[in-house]
Structures are given as C-alpha cells and as structure tokens.
C-alpha cells in the first residue's frame, strides 16, 4: 500500500515537472517567433521611409547620385526578394547602402539644417536602431531557447515531441560588416 502511494506520488511529481518544462519551452518559442515578426515590422517601415528620404535629399546631394542610386536599387531588391535567404542578403545590402548615405549626409550642413530632412534622417536612424535591437532581442531569446532544448534532461523531453521544438538560426555579422571600414584621411 505504502509503496503504491510512493509510486503514485513520484509519477505525479514527474508529470507536473514534464508539464512545467513543456510550457516553459512553448513560452520561449512564442517569444522567439514574436521577436522574429518584430524584425519584419521594422524592415517594412524601412522600405516605406526610403523613397521619401531619397526624394527630399536629392536636391542637396547632387554629387552623391551614385550613393542614392545604390540605396534605391537595394531597396527594390529587398522589397521583391523571395525566401528567407535572399531576403536576409538583400536587407543586409540595403542596410549597408543606408549606412553610407547617413554617414555622407553628415558632410552636408544644409541638409541637416532642413527640418524636413533631419526629421526623416532621425526616423531612418531610429528604424535602423530598431532593426538591430530587434535582431539583438531575437538572438538573445533564440539563444536562450536553443540552450534550453539542448541541455539535459530537456533534450530527452524534446525528443518525445519530434519536430515541435527545433533550434532557431541566429543572425550573424556578415563578412562585409565585420571588416573595418576604410577611412581615407588624405585630404
């Protein structure tokens, strides 16, 4: 009799623990997915802002036609990109082109004095920051999730559920971003 109770007790505790682990994993997974959709929202916003910005700075930056063209092309590519791999690559290119544009704009005092343009610049800066913060949050929560499903004994439980819990890929710094920028100081 006593042994039966002990066995039942152990089973109940085990079941409760299983439920706890499962729910925890589901919560973490949802958080990662939500982080992913946040990135999408910000990318969409970036695409919407670019045409306005390019139109307002065109007049001031006649000598930077090449940079502006690159931004417009990169945007077109990013909007039409299909599939995750292509999308990530196109967005990275767009990010690089925008970064250059924002850096060059610093050299044009007239441009910064124009309230309309400076507002757009601020909006673009904040969108760029939001994208990188959203990625950062995605990476942080995905790492947490990936660790959780791999440590023992969680990995055994994950095995029961087949493909429900799979580790997320992380954003990594590309070769282009990793390289130090060339700064030419020979005026």
């Amino acid at each position, binding site marked *: 009799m006593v042994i039966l109770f002990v066995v039942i007790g152990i089973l109940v505790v085990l079941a409760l623990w299983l439920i706890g682990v499962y729910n925890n994993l589901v919560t973490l997974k949802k*958080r990662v997915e939500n982080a992913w959709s*946040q990135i999408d929202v*910000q990318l969409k916003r970036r695409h919407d802002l670019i045409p306005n910005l390019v139109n307002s700075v065109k007049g001031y930056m006649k000598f930077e036609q090449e940079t502006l063209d690159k931004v417009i092309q990169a945007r077109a590519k990013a909007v039409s990109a299909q599939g995750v791999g292509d999308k990530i690559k196109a967005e990275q290119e767009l990010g690089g082109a925008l970064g250059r544009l924002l850096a060059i704009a610093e050299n044009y005092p007239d441009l910064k004095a124009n309230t309309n343009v400076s507002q757009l610049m*601020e909006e673009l*800066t904040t969108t760029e920051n*939001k994208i990188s*913060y*959203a990625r950062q*949050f995605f990476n942080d929560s995905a790492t947490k999730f990936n660790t959780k499903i791999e440590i023992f004994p969680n990995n055994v439980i994950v095995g029961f559920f087949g493909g429900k819990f799979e580790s997320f890929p992380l954003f990594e710094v590309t070769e282009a971003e990793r390289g130090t920028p060339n700064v030419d100081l020979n005026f």
Partner: protein
Amino acid sequence: MMVFLVMMIAFGLIIDLVFGILPIFTLVFLAIASIQTLVSLTSGKEIVLRSVKARELKANDPEERQLKNIVDELSIAAGMGKPPEVYVIDDDSVINAFATGRKQEDSVICVTSGLLKNLDREETSGVIGHELSHIVNRDILLMTLISALLGAVVIVQLLAFRALITYLRFGAIGAATRSRRSSKKNDNSALAIIAFLAAVAGLGALFSFIGRLSLLAVSRTREYFADARAVELTRNPSGLANALRKIVTSSAKLQTANVATAHLFISDPLKRGINNRTSFFASLWSTHPPIAMRISILENKTLTEIEAELSDYI
C-alpha cells in the same frame, strides 16, 4: 501585493496574540493595508508626475521626437510589448530621469528638458536603458510596496504614540482622583494599557527604522542592477557612463523633487552629499550608490581614478 497584505495581517496578529485581544488589531491592520495598497497602486503614477510638474511629450519637437524614438527602440531591445509613456519636466538646468508605474503596460518614463539638451543620442539611450530595466525588473512596484508598508507602520506608530500621550495626561489624572477610593484592580489595568500602547509605538518605531534601512539598501542594489541591464540592452557602457559624468558635472538640483520621490531618479535629484560618500555609514543611509563608483564599474576602472577625475564636483 499579497505579501504586503499578509505581512500587515501578521503584524496585527502578533500584537493581538501578545495581548490576547484577537480580532481587533488584525482587522485594523487589514483595513489600513488595503487602503494603502489601493491608494499607492492606483494613483502613485499620477501623484508622482504631478508632484514633479511633468508634462506630456510634444511630438512635433525634434528633440522630444528623438526621445520617443529612443524609448521605442529600447523597448524592442527589452522585449516589451508596449513602450512606456514619456513625460518631460521643463527644467533646462537639470539632467535627470525617472521611471514609475506599477505594471509594464502602464509605466512612465520621465526626463528633464536639460537631459534632452545636454545629452547626445548614445548617452540618452544609456539613461533610457537604465530606466527601462527598472520597469522590466518591476523595481518600481517593489519600491512602492515597501514605502506603502513603511507608511502604514508609521501611521500605526503615530496613533499609538498619540494615544499613549493622551492616556498619560488624562488617564493619570483620572486615576489619581479615583485612587482615593483606592482600587488596586484599576491601577493594574491602567498600567497594562500604557504598556500595550508603549509596546505598539516601540515596535512600530523599530519596524519603520529597519524598513527604512532596507528600503535604502534595496534602492541602491537596484540602481547597480539597472546600470548593468542598461549596458546589456544598449551594448554600450560608455553611453551611460558619459551620461552619469554629465549629471555630476553639470546638473543642478531639481526644485520639484522631494525626499519622497528622490529614490525614483537615476541619480539623486536633491544632490545630497551623502550619496557620493563611500564610507560604511554613509552608504547605509544613501538612496543611490556613489556616481563615481557606478562610472568606475561601467568603465572597468578603479574608483580612485574616477574620483580624481571628478574631484572638483564631488
């Protein structure tokens, strides 16, 4: 919240059990605790914002627009669903900020206009990161609850003390006139009441003293913790460190802040000297850790280095 109620009831129960008058004090404490909790939780935010004369953000001002953007950015970094509301205190001579609100969903971040004018984007991000982590860690709720508990204890202590004084003044006269008829039983009950009231007042004083010290200790550790979280969010320790530097070197005292709200701010708005000393006794009584210490942790330098650098100001 439950913890607070349970603690208040337990406090009442102890008194009741000691003196064997079971339901009275437990009920009194329950009532006080409920009222205090309700008041502090529902109106804390509005009261604080009104007391520091804060106003809502102006969306068309470029600097305030940028502030709003920074708050939104870091809310994403912290994984908050809805970014907190932003308020501004119009005082160009002060660089300071605080966060308040009981839940993540209706929290508030408030900065001075001096902060907007004097700090650049990076530095402001550091400060906002610090305030956001107060919100995410629910520090404000914790602090509000401790102060509400303290408030309730102080009220009880004052009531008991008042009653004791009144009883000694009038009760003693009454006892003296009655003692001609000399009834020993009467004397005993008078002594018991005096002892009881004295015990309540004494206990209350002790509780509020210990409570105050622990509130300060919690406040200080939470500041360090929020600094660390700010760096985790912005991945940029120099932003916050430079912001703290500017606060030390060029911020004036905030006129609208007071002792009750001082602990909410990122750095002591009253600029009390005690908050910059590092001795054991000073650190027991300060609401904020010394800024030099915070900068030295953020920049991984020794305390003496930073103190030497800022020696003109602290």
